[in-house]
């Protein structure tokens, strides 16, 4: 045991030092809960019907980013990992938007 185990231990300690504390984890969990509650409230409030999509999507994106940055540690990790995830995420969003435009927007435009 060696050097390998000791080095792994060092690595674990370095990771631990970079990661948020349990207090921050709990705080993020609390924020996620509150944001989810707000999303559900917006869904049920009739007065916000016209605006619900415009309100819910940014709230959902904020939850997504909080989990990715703090729970998946992208905020503290090597930038290359962020690049890998962001590149694939952008490509996935491009696929969704392209297919929706191709099948749901263009056919209606063609019909006039």
């Amino acid at each position, binding site marked *: 045991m*060696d*050097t*390998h*185990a*000791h*080095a*792994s*231990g*060092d*690595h*674990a*300690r370095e*990771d*631990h030092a970079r*990661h948020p*504390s*349990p207090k921050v*984890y*709990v705080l*993020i*969990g609390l924020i*996620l*809960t509150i944001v*989810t509650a707000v*999303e*559900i409230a*917006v*869904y*049920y409030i009739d007065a916000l019907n016209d605006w*619900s*999509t415009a309100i*819910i*999507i940014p709230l*959902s994106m904020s*939850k*997504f980013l909080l*989990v*990715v940055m703090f*729970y*998946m*540690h992208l905020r503290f990790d*090597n930038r*290359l*990992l962020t690049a*890998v*995830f962001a*590149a*694939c*995420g952008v*490509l*996935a*969003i491009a*696929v*969704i938007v392209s*297919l*929706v435009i191709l*099948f*749901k927007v263009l056919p209606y435009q063609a019909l006039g």
Partner: protein
Amino acid sequence: MSEHAAQIDRHYTTTGIDSRKLGLWVLIGSESLFFGSLIATYMVYRGQSTVGPFPHGPDGLLDIPLTSVSTFVLLMSSLAMVLALHAVQVSNRRGAITWLLATALLGAGFLGFQAYEFTHFWHEGLTLDRNLFGASFFILTGFHGAHVAVGVVWLLILMTEAWRHRLPASRALSVEIAGLYWHFVDVVWIVIFTLIYLIE
């Protein structure tokens, strides 16, 4: 030699990132595209069903209160997961076992909600081949549920390792990698919950 071994251990790849961690992130990238395609399919077929049952409306099938609870359960499982990682990093074996078990149980709870929802929909006449909503909904949420099931098994294996004193702080990366997978499953659900359930 020992210094050399330490260097190899701390710089697994030329990028300076552990190869297992980099590999898991590449897997997450490819999974993003996989779920992106399924979400795109759902979005394209949205509102195109010619026969019921339909997701929204007065007789809509989707049960928002129930799914809100299951969403909360999955979000809390992510919190339990990071607390498990922290426990392993500080060599708190009891904490690691507790939080890994809590994460697995919350994941199993989410699957229970999904099983109830699927059964309820089936009784209401929604099947995979009933309409476009049924086909795209069951495929998308079914694949997500399968990923959650894989995660639950992975977490239970890690919990067993901790129980057998085989999960010291030096193996925290194994827990972190399982956590990355688990949180990815969580963020996919954040997107699914928004697009399928909350936006009519």
